[in-house]
C-alpha cells in the first residue's frame, strides 16, 4: 500500500494518460445528475458527484446482456466476451462495499462467469464522498468509508488529493502519476482521517435507530407486522427501488431470435422482485401478493442476505429513496417504524425465543444444523465487524473480491448458462396434456442425476423450463422427463419429434436421500403431476427392492383421464410389498379407486411412523392437508420429504426468482424435509 499526494490538476492529466491506455468508465454529469459512463475526455470526469443514478454494478451486471448465443436447434455457444480491461473511476465507498457484496454473491456456489469476467477486467478507483446526496445514510450502515475492496482510493484534502493504492493493479495506476510525486506525510494522513470522520458522521441524512447488526433480529420479529400491508397499499410495484439498488441483482432471462429463425441470443435483463410477475408461474399461480413482494425486498436486504452471506444487503446509498415516487421504499423509514413497534429487537435475546424461528429456519437450512448454532447465528447475525483506523464505528466485513485469483480464461471455459445438447430418443403421449420424452445427452454422456433432481430444458429462441427427471438414476445414458403443456417452452417441446435436439442444463437441486432411507418403509404421496418427480424415487426403490421395507404409493388426480403411468402402476402393484392406492377428485367414466382428495387414502396406508419416510409431491394446495394428516398420524417432520416448485430462471442460485423467503429452491431444494421448511412462511402457503 502506498499513499501519494497530488495536485488537483494532476488528477486531470493522470486521467488523460489513463484514457490513452485503456477504457475508462467514469462519473460524469448528465441531465443535472450523475452517471457512470464511458469517458471520452478527461474534462468530463466529476469527483464531486453526490450519487449516480445507476449503481456501478451495471458495469458488471449490465441492465441487458447476452448470456448464450445460438444457432437453433443444435448449437449453443458462449457469447464472445468483451475482453477489454477498464478502469471504473469515481466509485463512492458505499458502492465499493456493494461491489464487494456482489463479488461474494456471484462467486458463491456456481460462480457466474459473466459477472466475474467483467469484475476481473476492472480496476476500481474509489473516491471518498465530497458532496453528500440528499438521501444517503451510508454513515448509519457503516459504509461511509471503506478499507478495502478498491484498487485505488482518491481523497480530496483541500486542493490536493491523496491517492492510495491497495493492490498490484492499483500500483500500476499510481505509477502513471510519474516519478516525481510526493508520498503523503503523516499530517496529510491525519487530514484524510478527518475527512473519513466527517463522512462517517455526515453521510446520515436519515438516522437509523439501531446498528445495522440488529436488523436481522428486528426483521425476525416483524414478519407479521401490519406495516407491510399499510405501506404496500402505496407501493406501485414499479420496481424502481430494485433497479437502482447497488445490491439488487435479480435477473430475468429471455430469448431473442433473428429473422433466419435459427440464430439468436439468450439475454439476461435486470429484474425486480417487486414486479407482479416475478414469482408468478405458468397457469397463473401467484406465490407473492403485493404485500409479500413489498416485504420480501426488506427481508432480502435485512435478513436473508445476512443469514446467507454475513452482510446486510443495504449500503445506505439512498438511491431507492431518491427513486420511489410513492415514498415507501426507504429502508430507514421502515426499519425505524418497526423498531418502535418491536423495541425488544434491541435487547439481548433470550435463549430459544420463538420469534426468531424464521431466522433459525434459514440458518439451519444453510447448514448450521445444530439448534445452538442457529440460535447463536440469529442472536449474533453473522456480521463480522472490523474497525477502520480508529475503533469508533462498526463496519461491515467486506467480502474479499474472489475474482483477482480467477483466471479469465478459466472463467470462460465453463459457462453454466450454456446448455448441453440432448437428442429426443422417444416421445409418448401419456394424457391429453402430458407427454413423456426419453432424452439422451450428446456422446451418450450420462446425466448422472439423483432421484428428485431437475434439469433446465432449453428450446433456443423460445426459452427454458425447469423439468424434473422422472426416471430413476440407474437408467443408463438416457433419461425421461414428463412435461405438461402450459406455456411456450412446454408447448414448443410438443412439436418436436424423436431425433430432434433440445438443450439441457443440470442436473440441479437436491434429491430424495434414498441411500439414507434404506431399511425404512417408503410412503409416496403424489397429487396430479407430482407423481412425475417421485417416479424417479419409486423406480430407484423398486430397483433396490431388498434395501427397503414396504412401498406404499398414494396417488390422487383430478379425474381418471389424468392418470399418468397407468401400465407402470399395474406393474408396480405386482411387486412384493408394494401397495398403490388411487383416488380421483371427480368421478368421470370408469374408475376402480377411491373418490376424494389424496388425504382420503392416508388412513389406508398403514403408516408406522418410526419406520416410515414419506415423499410428498403435488400442487401447492395439497401440502397443507397432507402434511397435517401425516403429522397427526404420528410422523416426525424430519421424516417427511417434500418437493417444492417455484418460478425459475437460472437454476444456479443467482436470478432470485425461486426464493422461498431466503431459500433458493434451485439450490437448497426442490427436495426439503418438512422440518426444514415448516417455519418458512412462504413455503407451504
Amino acid at each position: 500500500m502506498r499513499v501519494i499526494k497530488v495536485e488537483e490538476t494532476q488528477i486531470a492529466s493522470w486521467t488523460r494518460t489513463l484514457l490513452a491506455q485503456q477504457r475508462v468508465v467514469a462519473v460524469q454529469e448528465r441531465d443535472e445528475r450523475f452517471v457512470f459512463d464511458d469517458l471520452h475526455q478527461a474534462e468530463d470526469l466529476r469527483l464531486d458527484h453526490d450519487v449516480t443514478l445507476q449503481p456501478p454494478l451495471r458495469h458488471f451486471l449490465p441492465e441487458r446482456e447476452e448470456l448464450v448465443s445460438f444457432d437453433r436447434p443444435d448449437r449453443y455457444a458462449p457469447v464472445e466476451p468483451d475482453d477489454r480491461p477498464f478502469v471504473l473511476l469515481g466509485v463512492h465507498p458505499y458502492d465499493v462495499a456493494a461491489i464487494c457484496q456482489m463479488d461474494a454473491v456471484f462467486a458463491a456456489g456456481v460462480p457466474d462467469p459473466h459477472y466475474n469476467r467483467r469484475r476481473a477486467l476492472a480496476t476500481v478507483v474509489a473516491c471518498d464522498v465530497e458532496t453528500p446526496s440528499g438521501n444517503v445514510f451510508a454513515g448509519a450502515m457503516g459504509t461511509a468509508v471503506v478499507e478495502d475492496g478498491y484498487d485505488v482510493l482518491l481523497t480530496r484534502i483541500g486542493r490536493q488529493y491523496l491517492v492510495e493504492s491497495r493492490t498490484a493493479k492499483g500500483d500500476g495506476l499510481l505509477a502513471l502519476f510519474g516519478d516525481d510525486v510526493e508520498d503523503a506525510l503523516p499530517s496529510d494522513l491525519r487530514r484524510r482521517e478527518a475527512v473519513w470522520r466527517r463522512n462517517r458522521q455526515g453521510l446520515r441524512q436519515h438516522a437509523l435507530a439501531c446498528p445495522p447488526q440488529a436488523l436481522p433480529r428486528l426483521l425476525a420479529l416483524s414478519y407479521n407486522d401490519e406495516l407491510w400491508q399499510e405501506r404496500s397499499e402505496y407501493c406501485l410495484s414499479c420496481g424502481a427501488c430494485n433497479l437502482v439498488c447497488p445490491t439488487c441483482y435479480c435477473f430475468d432471462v429471455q430469448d431473442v431470435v433473428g429473422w433466419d429463425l435459427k440464430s439468436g441470443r439468450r439475454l439476461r435483463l435486470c429484474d425486480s422482485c417487486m414486479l407482479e410477475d416475478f414469482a408468478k408461474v405458468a397457469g397463473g399461480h401467484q406465490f407473492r401478493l403485493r404485500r409479500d413482494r413489498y416485504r420480501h425486498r426488506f427481508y432480502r436486504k435485512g435478513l436473508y442476505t445476512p443469514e446467507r452471506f454475513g452482510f446486510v444487503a443495504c449500503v445506505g446509498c439512498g438511491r431507492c429513496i431518491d427513486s420511489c415516487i410513492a415514498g415507501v421504499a426507504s429502508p430507514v423509514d421502515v426499519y425505524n417504524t418497526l423498531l418502535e413497534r418491536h423495541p425488544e429487537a434491541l435487547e439481548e435475546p433470550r435463549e430459544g425465543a420463538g420469534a426468531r424461528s424464521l431466522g433459525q429456519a434459514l440458518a439451519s437450512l444453510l447448514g448450521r444444523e445444530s439448534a445452538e448454532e442457529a440460535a447463536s447465528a440469529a442472536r449474533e447475525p453473522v456480521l463480522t465487524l472490523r474497525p477502520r483506523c480508529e475503533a469508533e464505528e462498526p463496519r461491515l466485513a467486506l467480502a474479499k473480491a474472489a475474482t483477482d485469483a480467477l483466471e479469465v480464461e478459466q472463467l470462460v471455459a465453463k459457462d453454466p448458462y450454456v446448455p448441453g445438447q440432448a437428442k429426443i430418443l422417444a416421445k409418448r403421449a401419456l394424457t391429453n396434456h402430458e407427454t413423456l420424452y426419453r432424452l439422451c445427452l450428446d456422446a451418450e454422456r450420462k446425466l448422472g442425476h439423483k432421484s428428485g433432481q431437475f434439469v433446465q430444458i432449453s428450446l433456443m429462441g423460445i426459452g427454458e423450463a425447469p423439468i424434473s427427471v422422472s426416471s430413476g438414476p440407474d437408467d443408463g445414458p438416457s433419461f425421461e422427463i414428463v412435461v405438461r403443456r402450459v406455456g411456450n417452452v412446454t408447448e414448443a417441446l410438443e412439436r418436436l419429434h424423436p431425433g430432434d435436439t433440445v438443450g439441457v442444463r443440470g442436473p440441479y437441486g437436491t434429491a430424495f436421500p434414498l441411500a439414507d432411507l434404506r431399511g425404512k418403509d417408503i410412503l409416496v404421496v403424489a397429487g396430479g403431476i407430482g407423481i412425475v418427480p417421485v417416479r424417479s424415487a419409486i423406480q430407484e426403490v423398486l430397483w433396490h427392492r431388498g434395501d427397503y421395507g414396504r412401498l406404499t404409493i398414494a396417488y390422487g388426480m383430478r379425474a381418471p383421464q389424468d392418470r399418468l403411468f397407468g401400465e407402470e402402476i399395474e406393474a408396480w402393484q405386482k411387486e412384493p410389498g408394494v401397495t398403490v392406492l388411487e383416488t380421483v377428485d371427480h368421478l368421470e367414466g370408469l374408475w376402480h379407486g377411491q373418490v376424494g382428495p389424496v388425504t382420503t387414502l392416508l388412513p389406508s396406508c398403514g403408516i408406522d411412523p418410526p419406520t416410515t419416510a414419506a415423499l410428498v409431491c403435488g400442487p401447492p394446495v395439497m401440502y397443507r392437508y397432507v402434511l397435517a394428516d401425516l403429522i397427526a398420524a404420528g410422523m416426525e417432520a424430519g421424516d417427511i420429504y417434500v418437493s417444492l416448485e417455484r418460478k425459475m430462471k437460472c437454476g444456479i442460485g443467482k436470478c432470485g426468482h425461486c426464493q422461498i423467503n431466503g431459500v433458493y429452491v434451485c439450490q437448497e431444494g426442490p427436495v426439503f424435509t418438512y422440518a426444514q421448511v415448516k417455519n418458512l412462511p412462504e413455503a407451504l402457503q
Partner: protein
Amino acid sequence: MKKPRVAIFDFAGCEGCQLQIVNLEEELLSLLEVVDVVEWREGSSEKSPEFDIALVEGAITRPQDVRRLEQIRARAKVLVALGACASHGGVNKLRQRLDLGAAKRIVYGASAREAFLGSGPVQSVDEVVSVDARIEGCPIDSQELSSVLRSLVLGGEPKTPNFPVCVECKRAGNVCRYERGEICLGPVTRGGCGARCPSYGMWCYGCRGSVDEPNIHAARAVLERYGKTVQELEERLALFGSR
C-alpha cells in the same frame, strides 16, 4: 416448412400501426422470406380465403365491422390485435381505471364528434372476438411487431409484457419526470415500449394501457405527494389530444 400466411386488416383507426409495418423497411424483406402476406390493403393486392395469422388494427365501431371481424376470426388460426385502438381503445381504458371520465372528449378534442369516432359504442377487438396476442402501443413499435411475428412463426405465444414503463425507464437510467416536477403515467402503464417517452424527456401518457393490476390508489397518492391533481392530469391529456 410451409410459410405461414399473414393477413392484415384495418378497422377504425389512423392506420399508423400499419405504417409501422412499412417502417420495418429492410426487415420487411426478411419478414417476407418467412411469411406470405396474403391480404393487405396497405401494401399488397392479393386476397386469400385462408391465412394463419391475422393482424387486426383499429377499434370496432359499426355493426358491419362486427360481422367482418367475426369472419376474420373464423378464418384465422391466430388473431393479433395491433395497437392501442384494437387492444383496448388506446388511452381510454387506463383513463376509465383512473375514473376520470369524459376520456374520449379530452383525448380527441374537437374531433370526438366526427362520424368515425362517434358512430356507436367503440369496442376493442377482444370485446368482439377472442384475441391470441396483443401488440400494444400508439403506434405500435415496429421492433416489437417484428419479434412477436418471429415468435408466432416459431410457434411461440408472444407474451404481452406486464411490467410498468418505470422498469424500462430505470433500466435506461432516466431521471424521473416527477423529479422534474411533471406528471407521468409510467407506473401504471404496461411497458414494452422501452420507456420511449421518458427517454426523450416527455411523460408517459399511457398509450399501452394499464398493467394487469395497477395500484390506482397508490397512483393517486403519488399525484398528491407531488402536489398534482387529477384535473391537472386531465388537462395534460387534453393538451396531448389537441396536438
